[in-house]
C-alpha cells in the first residue's frame, strides 16, 4: 500500500473522500418547548442548497416509535440517514414484543452515542437534532449537536434559533403552558427567525407530542408585517442613497 505523502494530511486517499467535509442541502432552525400536555416543536420546510432555496416542502420533523418526535437541522441527507438508523432501532424494539417500548430518553441517548461515535471517526453526521417526547406522563426534551454535545431543557433550539428564539423563550416560557399559548410562543419565535434568518422560509409545520401520540400540522405560513413607514420612502433624508 502506498505511503500517504505527509503534505496531504487527513483527506487524501479514495477512502477518505467518503468523509463528510461540508453540508450541501441544509435545513435551518428547529425550535421546541415543553408545555402542559407534552412537547411542541416547530420547523420550516425549506431545504437550502447554499444560498439557493432548492426544496420548499421538506418535512424536518418525524415521529419515532410511539413516544418520540425528532426534528433536525443541518445536512438533510444525514437526517435521512439518522431516520434509517432509528427505523432499525424501533424495528428491533418492536420485535421483542415484550410490551415495552423505547421512550424519548432512550432514543436521545442512542442518538447521542451515534453522533459522538461518528465524530470520533472524523466523519460526522452534519445535523443538530431535537428530540422530544412523553412517556408515562413524563415529558422529555433534549438536543444533540453534530459533535455529540447533548443536554435536555424546558426549551431548545438549533442554529439561529439559539441566538434568536432562546432569549424569547427564556423570558416568556413558564411551566404548564396551554396548547394555545405554546403555539403562540413558538410562532413568535418562528416569526423572528423568518424576519432575520436568511435561510428561513415562510412555510412551516408545528408538531405536537403528548401521551396520546404525535400530530404534525399541515404546512402553513405566518403573517408578516412590512408596512413600516421607513420602508415606504427609504431615501428620505439621504437623497441619492438606497
Amino acid at each position: 500500500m502506498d505511503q500517504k505523502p505527509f503534505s496531504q494530511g487527513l483527506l487524501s486517499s479514495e477512502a477518505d473522500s467518503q468523509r463528510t467535509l461540508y453540508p450541501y442541502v441544509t435545513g435551518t432552525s428547529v425550535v421546541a418547548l415543553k408545555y402542559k400536555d407534552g412537547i411542541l416543536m416547530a420547523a420550516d420546510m425549506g431545504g437550502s442548497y447554499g444560498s439557493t432555496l432548492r426544496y420548499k416542502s421538506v418535512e424536518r420533523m418525524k415521529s419515532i416509535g410511539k413516544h418520540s418526535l425528532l426534528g433536525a437541522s443541518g445536512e438533510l441527507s444525514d437526517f435521512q440517514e439518522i431516520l434509517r438508523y432509528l427505523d432499525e432501532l424501533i424495528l428491533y424494539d418492536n420485535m421483542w414484543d415484550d410490551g415495552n417500548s423505547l421512550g424519548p430518553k432512550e432514543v436521545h441517548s442512542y442518538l447521542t452515542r451515534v453522533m459522538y461515535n461518528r465524530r470520533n471517526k472524523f466523519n460526522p453526521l452534519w445535523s443538530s437534532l431535537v428530540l422530544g417526547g412523553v412517556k408515562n406522563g413524563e415529558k422529555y426534551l433534549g438536543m444533540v449537536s453534530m459533535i455529540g454535545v447533548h443536554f435536555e431543557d424546558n426549551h431548545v433550539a438549533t442554529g439561529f434559533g439559539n441566538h434568536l428564539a432562546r432569549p424569547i423563550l427564556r423570558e416568556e416560557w413558564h411551566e404548564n403552558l396551554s396548547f394555545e399559548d405554546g403555539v403562540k410562543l413558538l410562532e413568535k419565535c418562528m416569526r423572528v427567525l423568518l424576519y432575520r434568518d436568511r435561510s428561513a422560509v415562510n412555510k412551516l409545520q408545528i408538531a405536537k407530542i403528548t401521551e396520546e401520540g404525535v400530530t404534525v400540522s399541515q404546512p402553513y405560513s405566518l403573517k408578516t408585517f412590512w408596512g413600516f413607514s421607513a420602508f415606504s420612502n427609504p431615501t428620505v433624508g439621504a437623497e441619492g442613497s438606497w
Partner: protein
Amino acid sequence: MTKQQANWSPYDNNGGSCVAIAGADYCVIAADTRMSTGYNILTRECSKITKLADKCMMASSGFQADVKALQKLLAARHLIYQHQHNKQMSCPAMAQLLSNTLYYKRFFPYYSFNVLGGLDSEGKGCVYTYDAVGSYERVGYSSQGSGSTLIMPFLDNQLKSPSPLLLPAQDAVTPLSESEAVDLVKTVFASATERDIYTGDKLEIVVVNAEGIRSEYMDLRKD
C-alpha cells in the same frame, strides 16, 4: 493546490468551573451548572458532578460530550469491578483508573478537565486533580475549568497548603470545618461568576462524609 483546511472541529469548550476541597473527615466537590458554546448559553441546569463510587465523586469541565463519555466509561468499569471484587472501588483506585483511561486516548484526548473528590480508605478527605491526558496528583484542594485561574489563587491564599516538598510530609487536608469549607466554596464561585462569562447560573455542592453524600444548591448570577 493549497492544503485542505478542516472546516469543523471535533472539540468544543462548553465552559464551567469545578472545585474540590479535602477535609479531615469530609470532602466538598462543587461545580456550576451552566453549559455554553461560544457566546451562547445552551442550558442553565446541567450537572458536571457524577458519582463514580460510594465515596468518590468526580467533577469535570471542558468538552461536554467527552466528559459524559468519560463518566459513562468509568461508571461501567466500576460496575465490572464490583462484580469481580464484590466491593466498591476506593477513591485512590478510581483515581488511578481515571488517569489510565485518560492516557489511553493520549493521541486524541478527552477534552475533559477533572477533579476527583472523596474519602480514602481511612475515611480522610482526598482530592485528585488531573489534566486532559491523565497526569494526576493527590492534593488538599484544586480547581479546574474556565474559572480555575480566578479560583485557584484564592484557594491557595485561604487554605495555605504546606509545600509538598517539605520533609516530613505534612498533611494537605484543610483544618477547616465542613460548613466553613462549604462557605468558602460559595464565596469562591460567587467571585468567579463575576468575571468569568462561562461560570454562573447555579452552583451544585456535594459533600461526602462518613454519613454519606449530600447535595446543596446555590443561585449564581445569570449574566
